[in-house]
């Protein structure tokens, strides 16, 4: 654990008794807890919810350049609250941090930023939409038309996003249950972005285009005490259908799974615990840990029976809160023919 991590944990009170991944499994005194049957109010709900403890604006993108080389891109802004309110000035209990990464077949570059709320260094406004930390920003006149940028010491990107489908809601109309005990979050996505722009690598700038997936999630206690991490999959099939599925690992060795099937027109079908399965096939040693980078993923109800393989198994986010996140290729399990691509996030592999 590095010093910066200590600094973050010092400010985030749940750290002292960290349980689960980054303490997401502790109780939420004073914070509002997500409740079933949510009624979302847009664009307001694209903005922050300070009375919930944790919230994120999460973009992943699968990109291709003119030569056909594949790339992955990530941009995430996190909000983490010490207290369920917001005040102006240094005393703000809202802490912001952000991660950015670019993955190529042979390279994974990542960086992070930190900021306190209350002074204008970071924040989100709903309309016009503007999420920022330092010079990184995701902004646009509305949620369907956005520009995105981030940079670090050795890479950067500047992209334009255009949605060509509706928002989709996970779980029961956006109320996404995370455990048998009832832990839950509000969770919706915009998986229909077309994205294009320029990524800058140490070797120089490259023009790329592809598709991007935005996740919005907020909660006050998204994990149960006995959950240690998750494996999250977002898959875009070549037939235009999409699948979001995750597996929460529990300390007794069992799993809690959830999935959403997203048809090409944006209609969704939620699947409860057990319908979706993900099983590690092979693991890779990265940053001193064994991380599963080959998976067997199935959703029998939709005849999904595929292997999911990391494009670059070294896509380790070596940041204050370390985890694995990178683009994946999806193949039919029996024939081995490519059927799609997507993103994989694995947390809690300490």
């Amino acid at each position, binding site marked *: 654990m*590095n*010093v*910066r991590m*200590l*600094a*973050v*944990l*010092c*400010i985030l*009170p749940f*750290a*002292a008794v960290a349980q689960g991944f980054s303490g997401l499994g502790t109780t939420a005194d004073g914070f509002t807890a997500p409740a079933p049957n949510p009624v979302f109010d847009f664009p307001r709900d694209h903005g922050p919810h300070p009375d919930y403890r944790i919230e994120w604006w999460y973009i992943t993108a699968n990109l291709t350049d003119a030569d056909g080389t594949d790339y992955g891109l990530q941009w995430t802004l996190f909000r983490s609250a010490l207290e369920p309110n917001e005040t102006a*000035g*240094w*005393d*703000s209990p809202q*802490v912001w*941090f952000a991660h950015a990464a670019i993955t190529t077949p042979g390279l994974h570059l990542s*960086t992070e930023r*930190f*900021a*306190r709320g209350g*002074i*204008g*260094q970071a924040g989100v406004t709903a309309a016009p939409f503007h999420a*920022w930390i*330092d*010079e990184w920003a995701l902004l646009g006149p509305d949620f369907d038309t956005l520009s995105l940028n981030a*940079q*670090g*010491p*050795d*890479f*950067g990107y500047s992209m334009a996003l255009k949605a060509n489908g509706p928002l989709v809601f996970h779980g029961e109309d956006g109320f996404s249950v995370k455990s048998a005990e009832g832990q839950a979050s509000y969770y919706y996505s915009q998986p229909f972005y077309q994205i294009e722009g320029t990524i*800058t690598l140490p070797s120089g700038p490259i023009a790329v285009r592809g598709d991007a997936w935005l996740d919005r999630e907020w909660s006050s206690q998204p994990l149960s005490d006995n959950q240690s991490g998750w494996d999250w999959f977002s898959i875009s099939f070549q037939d235009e259908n999409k699948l979001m599925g995750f597996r929460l690992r529990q300390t007794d060795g069992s799993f809690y799974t959830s999935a959403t099937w997203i048809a090409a027109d944006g209609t969704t079908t939620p699947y409860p615990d057990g319908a979706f399965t993900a099983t590690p096939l092979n693991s890779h040693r990265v940053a001193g840990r064994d991380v599963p980078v080959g998976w067997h993923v199935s959703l029998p109800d939709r005849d999904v029976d595929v292997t999911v393989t990391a494009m670059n198994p070294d896509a380790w986010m070596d940041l204050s809160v370390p985890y694995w996140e990178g683009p994946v290729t999806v193949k039919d399990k029996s024939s081995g023919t490519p059927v799609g691509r997507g993103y994989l996030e694995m947390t809690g592999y300490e």
Partner: protein
Amino acid sequence: MIHTCLIALLSHWLHKPLQLVAFIAGLAMATGLWSGVQAINTEARASYDAAANTLGEGQYDQLRPRTGTIVPLADYVALRRAGWQVSPVSEARVGDVRLVGIDPLTAPEGLGSTTSLDVQTAPETGPRIFANAETARQLSETLDVQIDNAIAPGLAIGDISEVQKFLGRDHLTRLIILPEQPLNQPDLSSIAPNLQRVASSQTADIAQLTDSFHLNLTAFGLLSFVVGLFIVNSTIGLAFEQRRGMIRTMRALGVPLRNLIILIAAEMLLLAMIGALLGIALGYVIAALLLPDVAATLRGLYGAQITGALQFRAEWWLSGLALALIGTGIAFASRAVQIARMPVLASARPRAWAMVNATRLRLQLFVALALLVIAGILALTVDGLLGGFVLLGFMLLGAALLFPVLADRVMTLIEARNRTPIWAWFWADTRQQLPGLSLALMALLLAVSANIGVATMVSSFRLTFVGFLDQRLAPELYVQAESPAQSLMLENFLQKRGLETLPLLAGEAQIAGQNVRLLGIRVAPTYRDNWRFLDAAPDVWDKIAAQQGVILNEQFARRADLWVGSVVEIAPGTALPVLGVVGDYGNPNAQANLSEDLIKRLFPGTYAQRYGIRTDDPAALQQDITETLRIPASAMIDQEQLKTASLDTFERTFLVTAALNVLTLGVAAFAILMSLLTLADIRLPQLAPVWALGFTRRQLGRLELLRAVALAGLVFCFAVPLGLALAWVLLAIVNVAAFGWRLPMFLFPYEYAALGLYALVAAAIAAAWPVSRLMRTPPSALLQVFSHER
């Protein structure tokens, strides 16, 4: 056999316990003063390092305001949102404590104390401001802090939100530039034109500033050590001479030379270890006693914070141990050679060592003169601190070596003029004793001349400084303004009352590679009447008022070699001639004075943060200002208070020097006592015949006392010119390098006379014990002399 030989060798110390005491005490004192000084230096350096580490000063470049002391919060946010990876620091003084707020979220790794950010020690509730126990006590009435002893002394560090809340402000003091910056970022000038980048090396100058002070201490420690080694050397010499007979007997009995030398070496090592360990303990006590004063001095003179609590660190006690062993080793090596060369059946004449003296004196004279010639050449050519100390070393060593030679000549001259038998014998006998006493006398010479030199320097400094304060602190009241609005209000208020008002506007500049404080002043009669220039152009004040030049302080002029006629660039595109150089004693910083209007023009937004006011009734004015303008009394200080505070700082600066001086003198007196005591034993064969001729023991005792006083007088006569030469080197070379100012040298004959009296009294006291022993020597012992070796 080895056991028996060792017992035989050690038995010498049983017979001569005083020599044993002299050996061990001499070494202990030498080691004690040396390691005490080193302990202080080590502690101070550890404090500087802790401060530098905690604050990241010296590690990271920073952004600081071009003018004023404020970095607006908006500038910080604008820089971050433009891609500048900077981290905010908010800093203020709370009493003597430096309160620093940092943002752990954006601060570079390692900034701040790691423990204060540790999960275990940072509870969820309670203040997030940390300080060590000593600082926490100082703050106990104003600020609630948690104790973290890893934090540098005089520093309280906390989360910026807590610090800003306590200070009740929004703005920042400076920004730390993180080492890793993103690919693209706009120029600083397009975002925050009022900020300037300060390279890391320029911010960490506390260690450099204080280097000279520590070198001063080290030099004193070394001087004491040398004096102590004189004692050790003379004791070892004496012990060897007295054991010649024993060594000869052991060799004759068949003890191999090699074994004998190894055994003696082991014996020396054992004694040296005992002496050194006692010395280290003594050093700890000395350092613990002096450290608070040193801390106060460094704070007053350089603004450097060091801890008042002493730690037992390997750096200093190991260096003390090593020096003690090396010193003993050197003293022993020459004796070992003598033993090796000594024929087995050589006569064990106890005074043989004194007889070879004539040839040795000639050699000594030659070496002494060579050293003094080198010192003379150095005095004309050298500058800089190290050069100054090398010069001092050559001069003191040369003079010390010269002393026995000169004393011998003086004795011969006096002897030739005294025809009465008793006085002829007295002077001849004194001369005969010189070799045995010479090391002790040299030690006294060094101590007394160091005293004269340092006293001259300190007193000259005091005279100059007091005069300087009287001139410089002419305004009767000083008022601090917090904001431009308050400054303006104050100015109007004072103008209405028709008082002579001297505003001071501060800015910063880089001139000739140095950070220079710019002071904007309003030319007024007070300046014209009171400032005394070391060097000035004609009509200097008129030209300053016309914005045609600047006045530099002496330390800056010397460091950068800029004098009247030189041209300095005080801001981009603004180069002005130097019109004057002015003494500025007690200020470690480079400073340039210029017209108030010029500084306002160069640095728009600058305002007078301080006012000096001429008034007949400062108390009434102070009250009036508080009542009318609501400026608190704490923002004002009157001339009397300021003078007292300045003088207080000055006195404390030299308290340590004075203490070391006294200790060195004490060591020298001890050296004389020990030499006389040991000599008293071996002088019985000289005294017995005089007694037999009819002199009473009482008469002999008086003569012995007179001899000690006469020798001390001789030392003093020699020490006065040496001390004055030392003072000259200190004032003309060492001070210029250490502080940046050259002081006029004044002479203080009464002080010297008093010191001479002390030296005579010290010698008399040192002689009193051996003399009383002589007077109580039983006649039988005196008679035995004739039946023994003669």
